[in-house]
């Protein structure tokens, strides 16, 4: 499985993402934001975490309009897989690939901590190696992860089962305490209509080794890799 990790000025978790993808068996390479095309045969596009363009405008606003994003939109339009994590999620929202927006955290501070997520469905390319309702232990690191959308959008996301992950406690219960950034409906990640684009605030790519906190993040990358037949 070939993945392209897009590097914007100010991206800073691209290395972590490449490491996680590689560990799961993907052929991952970094792609500079000024490129007009994705590498031939790209199966998965990843927008990694960071502070693209310093987040000096709205988070993701400038990156969402970068040259390479036309190619990413085209890839998504053909059903190609796109994953945006943290700043990547913000970019997907700004680029119009996902609805809603990420507002400042409820406490108005950057927060970095371990966080359980409940896996809402397991019939997508991103989550097939998890079990439904499983509580996975990953981490968050963001100042603006407070998912917000208008009522209609929220209704549609819920109605069509497009919520990918919710902030939960260790048992998978959705509680107010577990939703530290104040996201609507405890939403930590959402899919596009066709389930081929996933945006999420938490970082599965930092929880891939027992030595460094645990391996619950691996499932996502292994799901993606196993969604593709091995290259001949």
């Amino acid at each position: 499985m070939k993945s392209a990790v897009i590097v914007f000025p100010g991206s800073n978790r691209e290395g972590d993402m490449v490491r996680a993808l590689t560990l799961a068996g993907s052929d991952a390479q970094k792609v500079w934001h000024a490129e007009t095309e994705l590498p031939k045969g790209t199966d998965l596009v990843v927008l990694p975490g960071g502070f693209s363009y310093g987040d000096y405008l709205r988070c993701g606003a400038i990156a969402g309009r970068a040259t390479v994003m036309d190619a990413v939109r085209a890839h998504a339009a053909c059903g190609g897989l796109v994953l945006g994590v943290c700043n990547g999620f913000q970019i997907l929202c700004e680029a119009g690939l996902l609805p809603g927006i990420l507002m400042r955290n409820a406490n108005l501070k950057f927060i970095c901590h371990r966080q359980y997520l409940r896996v809402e469905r397991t019939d997508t390319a991103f989550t097939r190696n998890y079990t439904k309702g499983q509580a996975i232990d990953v981490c968050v690191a963001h100042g603006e992860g407070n998912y917000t959308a208008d009522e209609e959008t929220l209704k549609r996301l819920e109605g069509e089962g497009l919520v990918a992950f919710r902030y939960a406690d260790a048992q998978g219960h959705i509680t107010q305490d577990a939703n530290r950034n104040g996201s609507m409906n405890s939403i930590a990640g959402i899919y596009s209509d066709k389930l081929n684009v996933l945006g999420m605030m938490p970082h599965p790519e930092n929880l891939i080794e027992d030595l460094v906190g645990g391996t619950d993040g691996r499932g996502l990358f292994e799901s993606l890799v196993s969604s593709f037949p091995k290259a001949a």
Partner: protein
Amino acid sequence: MIRNDVAITPELVKEHGLKPDEYERFVTLIGREPTITELGIVSAMWNEHCSYKSSRIHLRGLPTKAPWVIQGPGENAGVIDIGDGLACIFKMESHNHPSFIEPYQGAATGVGGILRDVFTMGARPIASLNFLRFGEPDHPKTPHLVSGVVAGIGGYGNSFGVPTVGGSVGFDKRYNGNILVNAMAVGLARTDEIFYAKATGVGNPIVYLGSKTGRDGIHGATMASAEFDDASEEKRPTVQVGDPFAEKLLLEACLELMKSGAVIAIQDMGAAGLTSSAVEMGAKGNLGIELDLDKVPCREEGMTAYEMMLSESQERMLMVLKPGMEQEAEAIFHKWGLDFAVIGKTTDTLRFVIKHQGEVKADLPIKELGDEAPLYDRPWVESPRQPVIAPDSVKAPMSEAEALLKLVGSPDQCSKRWVWEQYDHLILGNTVQTPGGDAAIVRVEDGPKGLALTTDVTPRYCEADPFEGGKQAVAEAWRNITAVGGLPLALTDNLNFASPERPESMGQFVGCVKGIGEACKALDFPVVSGNVSLYNETNGQGILPTPAIGGVGLLDDVTVNASVAFKAEGEAIILIGATEGWLGQSIYLRDVCGREEGAPPPVDLAQEKRNGDFVRQLIRSGQVKTVHDLSDGGIALALAEMAMAGGVGAEITAFPEGLPLHAFLFGEDQARYLIAVDEDVAADILYEAGAIGIPAVTLGLTGGDALILPGQQAISVKQLKAAHEAWLPNYMTGKA
């Protein structure tokens, strides 16, 4: 002859922080009245911050060498060899005064400056730490300063993309008017790809890189070399504004350029900006430097030569490039959207020549600007000796259980989670031990090695006995690293003191430096970089002497380490090291009895080394996974922290006869550790220790959901945690 537009009056000299005799020295050196630009340049080079004029003669006594030291003090950062062709490059630096005036930007640019010091040498930063001291919690300014400094450190480091993995936060009224913000950065480079500031070759292009130059930070280094008074807040315009995004681009562009082979020398523009960086490159290389300021990328219009030479705008670098490689270098910088300009050349004249708008604005002897800076052997007096406080002379005002609950929830000993959760401590995916333990551990690339990192000092010990306090600071950093299984290799020191012009505070400085040197020698733990921050006082009130130590240690196999958390029930808790119940200057005496007095615990460096080497070997052989070194709050506080971290209680049944229980539990004798091990292994460890004369005794067993101290009511781990976690968030939201 240089034209002089501005008459140099005694008032002007004074405003530049130069004493009349210092100015005279300069006039004699150049043989004429200086121009205003020249006066600005010399004030930048000869202030305390840049010239170390009061501290230099004392720093010479510090041990700086070891077979694994590649570069000691004098460069942007220290460099040590960690094997496998890799070097660890690190340094700590203060940003105290700017952070007091403008906490967010002051702290942010402190982090930015130290990161730049590290990547200037070719290293990619892999971890950042800090050491923070604030005024007493009740002081009206304290919450605002805590909030701003923490946000600033996070704001810069998080965006730049380096994990902030450790630090120290404390409060004391002596920092009311002068907080401490010390930032440490740690980077990795290949040993054959380290870059230095020394320029070589005549006629080589000098290149300006990074952000544009503005009027911010002019005279920042001079401000950092003066004591504060009530008008200091008017100095806000001399605090620079940080741009972590630009710094991240600068990092990537510099590392890419270094790989291309185009770089001869590189120096970041930190304190005293263009002046200090250019002079340093020339002086180190025995070369002159000629700059044409018309080429300097400016953010503001109409900047004068004086302003450009003294601006401390952030995220800028100066390089000497190999001739003919300018275009390649420029392409790399433009790819990253950064400014690139050839602004001068190296010469063989040994002069520092500044041209602007067709005129020579400065023409100074370059070597003398650094070498001939004033050097002072300031008068100093030894601190008065404090009496030793006998353990049984201290009456316990409350039960030991109550005292422990009070301490775990006190401002200095409470959980600092509220702080470190605002720092991205997980980015890069190599943080093996997160903040909250004895030392942080980060894996080196994909392993197997790891680095153990810590910042520490006990200022109240340093005040009571500077020499013992200096020793203790080094010993504690060494112990922190040892407690996670690391072999301490080298340290960086950030020496924060009050005015050197007062013999009492100069005496504290001299004593602490002597103590540091003594401990470094005994523990084979040399100083490879550091920073001196003097004049930390406001309206004549000095800070506690605070020589913060940033220690770096190596784990050969990062998977073999120890942490403070109790990991299983029924394990034996063993105390390593001798306990006499030393309560002088202890946290117990201060926070439970309300007495700040007595001599601090003496540090027996031979014992320190022997006990530490023993514990490290137990960790490295895989026998022990649970270790906590003992410091503030002694055995009791360590037990509480181990129980809280692991969610497992303990019962202490053994304690010595003839020592008051509170002295045994809360005494702060040095060179001690608590370990928890399987009972079978415990017998072997006690035997081994006995055989080589290391004091080791079993205190009790882990288990249950409460901590039970001898004869005391059980305190549930839940109750401990509630007290430990509550104070800081409550305080910051106005509830404490």
